[in-house]
């Protein structure tokens, strides 16, 4: 049995926090689901889980690539470097998705970008309601959604990278896992990531525009509490894997 020393508790807490970060990230990403795919709602035209998991997994790849560099592992700021790499990977992934989506919405579908939730874009101050087509929930990706998406991706990337960083550190000292720490930590991170991207998507209920959406304030606290509890449980399980009874 793994002793309940402070280091173990901190690791569980870190995993719980990173799961919560992933959960919060989902709320920032402008997801429109099927309506957005028909340019009838603001956001990217796919599901919450797909976007959050997609960007998070890219973040996981960049974070693990950073961790695998020998000079990084001996660096005193290894944790910051790994987290930054994860955030960058996620941000690049979501930015390129939103950019290519925007190109299609603007030049393929031919819709002006407008948010249905706010009258003026909080960042540019541009009027939104004038450009909204009748019977739709906005369309395309206005500036505020784009910025919100980037923030979300950064949080998700940091969350994914943090779980990976904690687990790979624990598993590399385990006699059972040892040399395969990267693979086992990666798969476990993926599992925790999926759980934490689906749970908030149930709270969000399919579509959200970003931090300016009124839904954001309404659902974030209860989703975050759920994710924190579930991730803490996953963290305990993850640490027990390394030690066994």
């Amino acid at each position, binding site marked *: 049995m793994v002793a309940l020393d402070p280091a173990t508790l901190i690791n569980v807490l870190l995993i719980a926090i990173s799961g919560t970060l992933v959960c919060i990230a989902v709320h920032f990403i402008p997801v429109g*689901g*099927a309506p957005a795919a028909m340019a009838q709602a603001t956001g990217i035209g796919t*599901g*919450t*889980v*797909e976007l959050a*998991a997609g960007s998070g997994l890219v973040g996981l790849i960049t974070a693990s690539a950073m961790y695998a560099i020998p000079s990084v592992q001996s660096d005193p700021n290894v944790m910051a470097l790994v987290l930054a790499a994860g955030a960058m990977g996620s941000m690049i992934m979501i930015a390129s998705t939103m950019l290519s989506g925007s190109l299609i919405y603007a030049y393929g579908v031919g819709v002006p970008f407008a948010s249905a939730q706010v009258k003026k874009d909080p960042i540019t101050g541009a009027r939104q309601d004038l450009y909204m087509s009748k019977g739709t929930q906005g369309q395309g990706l206005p500036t505020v959604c784009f910025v919100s998406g980037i923030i979300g991706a950064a949080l998700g990337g940091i969350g994914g990278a943090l779980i990976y960083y904690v687990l790979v550190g624990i598993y590399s000292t385990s006699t*059972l*896992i040892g040399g*395969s720490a990267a*693979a*086992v930590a990666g*798969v*476990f991170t*993926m*599992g*925790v*990531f*999926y*759980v934490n*991207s*689906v*749970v908030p*998507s*149930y*709270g*969000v*209920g*399919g579509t959200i525009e970003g931090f300016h959406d009124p839904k954001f304030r309404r*659902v974030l606290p*209860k*989703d975050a*509490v*759920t994710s924190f*509890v*579930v991730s803490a*449980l*996953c963290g305990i*399980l*993850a640490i*027990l*894997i390394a030690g*066994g*009874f």
Partner: protein
Amino acid sequence: MSDIKEIPPNTLMAFGIVGGLLGIYLTYILPLAGDAVGGPVKDLLTTIAPAAGALGGMCAIVWGAEAVRRVAKYGLGTGVPSIGQIAMGMGIVAAMFGLAIVKELTLAGPIVALVTASVIGLIIGWFAQNVIKMKIPVMIRCMTEIAAAGSLIIIGFSAAVAGTFEFSKLIPLVFDNGFMLAVFWVGAMALLHPFNAVLGPDEKQKRLLYLAFSTGAITMAVTGIAGIMTLGNAGIFTLLVGVVLWLIFYKKFWDEVYKDAAAVVGTGLIPKTEA
């Protein structure tokens, strides 16, 4: 649709748990029995053993797909795929924990994983119902069932790839080479696809079950391909059984579609010139 007799959830649950565990344990026991007998019987039993794990996974897929059907009928707001992904997320966490925690007591692994998955599913289901307030009456029960099915799917197909479910042997054969990702994703697809494909006002359980069997068989075939690289002949056997089962169950699904359809008509090719 009350005039159609459906298979009750408890029967399917029993089918999934008993079938799943039986298949998984056969993967472990058959080679041991082969060792005891020796000779050509040993080779035969070691070759067919991994396929038993995949068949166990298939039972779990059928059970899980039906549980997805019961909960997704209420409309999740995020699409059916999300529940397949959370199932595998919970399943993989529980499966890794269950198999790793038991150490020398290998045989207890799948059961510990099943119980762990049920607990995780119960907690997430409770939170979804009472904190996120999804207002789906069957949420807690179905989330528990789906998580449990997810863990059996992961263990069953991992055992089909590695020929065992000992965690120390799974690491080099399933984790290091990345086959776990194939098991994860193909398993998730097999679980979420049946209801995602047949949902609608005229959805029927029988059609879904046949489709679940056929997606399970595809998963078996894919793990067979992975098994060729890790186990050789045993993988080929798994692949062949998977393909044969897929043909059988896809034909059955096809027949159900024809039976349930009002009419099946050919539309011909799209005309070359617009009228």
